[in-house]
C-alpha cells in the first residue's frame, strides 16, 4: 500500500479538531493556561533556588572549594593542602583564578581558640584570610558595622562577640590557640572592625585574622592553608567549574579535592533537591489532571464520531490509521495550545522578570538554613522551564488521545454503524 498519502489522516485530524470550535477553544485555553502556570512556576522556583543557593554560598563558603583530601569532615588543622610541606600558594590561587567561570578565589586557614578582652573570654573560630581576595568570595567585607578588614596583627570580630567580651575597634584582644607544632600560640591583636552578618553562629563565633598572622600564631608555614573558597558566575554551573578547577590545580600538590557546593553544602543541596522533586510532582499532578480532563473531552469527541470511524473502517481503513487520526488530533490540540500558551507566557515571564513579586509587606526577611531570604519572587530567563513544559503539554495532548483512540477501534464497525 502506498504510504505517500499519509497527509489525509493529518488533514482529517486537523479538521476534526475544529469541528467543535467552542470545545476546542475551551480545552486549548485550559491547556495553555496550564502551560503558562507551569512555565511561571518553574521560573519562580528557579529564581528561589538561585536565591537560596546564592545566599547559602555567597556569605562564606563560595560555590566551589579546594581542600586536602583528608581535611573534611574532621577539619584537623594538620591536614593542610600538600601535607606538611604545603604548596605554592600564589600558583594555586592564580591557577584556580584563571579557570573559566571563576570570579573569585580566597585562600583560608582555620583554627580554634579563645579571644579575651579584660576579664571576658569567648571561644572562637579563627579564620585566616586574605582580606583583598576575600571580598570576591564572601560577604564579610560588606558586613562591617564599624571599622574594616584586618591587616597584619589585626583581628575583626562579630558584633555579638564584641558585646560579650566588650571589645571595640582600636582595642587589643588576646588570642590563644593550639598551634600545629603542638605548642600553644598566644598573641595580642588589635581589633580592626566589627561585622554583622545577621546570621546565627557567625557573629558570635567567627573572627577574621589576616592570613599570615594566623599562620604565624599557629606555627604554620606560608604555603600551608586549609581551604580555597571559589566563587563562580552562575551557581548552577558550579559542578562544571569544579571539574575544570580540579584539572587546573592537579599538578600543584597531591591529594587535592575540588568540590562544588552540592557536595560540601549537603543540607542545602538536599533541600533544593527536595524542593525540585516536590515541584516536579506538583507539575506531574497538574499535567496528569490535564490528561484526564482532555482525555475526557477527546473521548466524547471520538464517541460522537464512532459512526464515521465505522464508515472509514468499512471502506478498509486500518485500525492503525484510525488511531493515527485520533492521536494526531491530540497532537494538534497540544501544538495549538502550545502556540497560544507561548504567546501568553512570554509577556508574563518578562513582566515578572522586570518587576519581581515583592512580598515583603506580607513577610519580612527570613533566614532559612543559614541562608537569608529576601521575600522577593524573582523570575530568571531560561529555556529549560519552557522546554520541559512544552514537551509536557504536547505529551499531554498525545497521551490524552491514546485511550480514546483505543476505544475508537475497539467497537466493531457493524455495531457502531447500527448505533444512533
Amino acid at each position, binding site marked *: *500500500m*502506498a504510504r505517500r498519502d499519509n497527509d489525509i489522516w493529518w488533514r*482529517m485530524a486537523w479538521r476534526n479538531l475544529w*469541528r467543535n470550535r467552542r470545545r476546542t477553544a475551551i480545552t486549548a485555553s485550559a491547556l495553555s493556561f496550564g502551560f503558562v502556570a507551569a512555565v511561571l512556576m518553574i521560573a519562580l522556583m528557579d529564581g528561589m533556588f538561585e536565591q537560596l543557593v546564592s545566599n547559602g554560598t555567597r556569605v562564606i563558603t563560595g560555590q566551589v572549594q579546594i581542600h586536602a583530601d583528608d581535611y573534611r569532615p574532621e577539619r584537623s588543622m594538620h591536614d593542610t593542602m600538600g601535607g606538611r610541606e604545603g604548596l605554592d600558594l600564589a600558583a594555586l590561587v592564580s591557577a584556580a583564578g584563571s579557570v573559566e567561570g571563576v570570579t573569585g578565589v580566597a585562600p583560608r586557614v582555620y583554627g580554634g581558640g579563645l579571644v579575651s578582652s579584660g576579664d571576658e573570654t569567648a571561644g572562637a573560630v579563627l579564620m585566616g584570610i586574605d582580606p583583598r581576595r576575600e571580598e570576591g568570595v564572601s560577604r564579610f567585607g560588606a558586613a562591617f558595622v564599624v571599622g574594616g578588614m584586618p591587616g597584619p596583627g589585626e583581628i575583626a570580630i562579630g558584633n555579638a562577640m564584641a558585646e560579650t567580651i566588650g571589645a571595640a575597634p582600636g582595642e587589643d584582644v588576646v588570642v590563644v590557640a593550639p598551634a600545629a607544632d603542638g605548642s600553644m600560640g598566644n598573641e595580642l591583636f588589635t581589633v580592626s572592625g566589627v561585622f554583622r552578618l545577621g546570621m546565627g553562629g557567625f557573629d558570635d563565633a567567627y573572627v577574621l585574622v589576616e592570613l599570615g598572622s594566623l599562620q604565624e600564631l599557629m606555627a604554620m608555614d606560608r604555603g600551608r592553608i586549609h581551604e580555597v573558597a571559589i566563587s563562580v558566575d552562575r551557581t548552577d554551573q558550579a559542578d562544571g567549574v569544579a571539574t575544570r578547577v580540579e584539572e587546573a590545580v592537579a599538578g600543584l600538590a597531591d591529594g587535592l579535592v575540588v568540590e562544588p557546593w552540592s557536595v560540601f553544602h549537603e543540607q542545602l543541596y538536599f533541600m533544593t533537591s527536595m524542593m525540585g522533586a516536590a515541584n516536579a510532582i506538583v507539575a506531574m499532578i497538574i499535567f496528569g489532571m490535564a490528561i484526564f480532563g482532555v482525555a475526557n473531552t477527546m473521548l466524547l469527541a471520538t464517541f460522537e464520531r464512532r459512526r464515521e470511524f465505522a*464508515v472509514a473502517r468499512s471502506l*478498509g*481503513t486500518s485500525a492503525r490509521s484510525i488511531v493515527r487520526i485520533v492521536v494526531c488530533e491530540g497532537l494538534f490540540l497540544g501544538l495549538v495550545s502550545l502556540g497560544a500558551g507561548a504567546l501568553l507566557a512570554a509577556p508574563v515571564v518578562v513582566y515578572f522578570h522586570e518587576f519581581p513579586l515583592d512580598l515583603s509587606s506580607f513577610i519580612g526577611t527570613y533566614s532559612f538554613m543559614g541562608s537569608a531570604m529576601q521575600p522577593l519572587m524573582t523570575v530568571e530567563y531560561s529555556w529549560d522551564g519552557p522546554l520541559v513544559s512544552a514537551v509536557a503539554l504536547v505529551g499531554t495532548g498525545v497521551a490524552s488521545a491514546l485511550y480514546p483512540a483505543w476505544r475508537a477501534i475497539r467497537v*466493531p464497525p*457493524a455495531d457502531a454503524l447500527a448505533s444512533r
Partner: protein
Amino acid sequence: MRTERLWKIYPQDPRPVEAVRGIDLTVLRGEFVAMAGPSGSGKTTMLNLVGGLTRPTRGEVWIEGEEISALSDRRLADLRMQRIGFVFQSYNLLPVLSALENAEFTLLLQGVPAGERRERVRELFREIGLEGLENRRPPKLSGGQQQRVAVARAVLGEPALVLADEPTANLDSHTAEALLDVMERLNRTKGTTFVFSTHDPRVMERARRLIRLVDGRIESDQAASG
C-alpha cells in the same frame, strides 16, 4: 459471492436473536440484486456478514474464492478496501472531507496516485451529475447528492461487489429513482455487482433479481422483469 449455511445469532436476553438462519446464497459477477424484506428480517445483518463487518456464528462467506469469516481484522480491512464497496442508509460520508475527498477515499487507501485519483473521480462525477460539487463538504450537499457521492466512493475502487443497505431509504421517490439510475448505469457500464437491501416496492422493481427475506431465511429468490 457465495454464502453457505450462514447463521448469525446475537446473544441477547432473554433469548438469543437468530438474525440470519442458514442462508445459502450465490451472487454472480455483474448481477444487480435487491434483498427485500420487512424491518428486522435480517437484511442489514446479511450485508454486514458478506462485507466482513461482522462475523458469522456458523457457516461460510466466500468472496471471489476466498473464505473470509476466519480472516484477521487486518485482512478483512484489506479485503474491504480491495474488493468491497459499501453504501449505507445515511450519515455515510465523512463530514470533514469534501465530496471529492470522500469519493477518492478508497482509491487513496488502495494507493492510487493523486493525479489518477482526481481524474477518475472527476470523470465519474461528470457521469453521475455531480460535476462542480467536488469541493463541497457533505453538509452542503443534498441527500441525493450525498448518496451519489457514496455510490461513487463505493464503485471507484473497482470492487468485486458493492453492498448497499437501504441506500434510498432517506431519499424522496424522485431522488431515489435517480440514484437507482446511477447504480444501474454503473452496473451496466462497469459491470459492478450490486447487492442492495430495501423494503420499498418501487426499488424492488428495479432489480433484476429479487430475494425476499423473512425472519432470517430466504423466502423467495426470483429473476425479476427488471
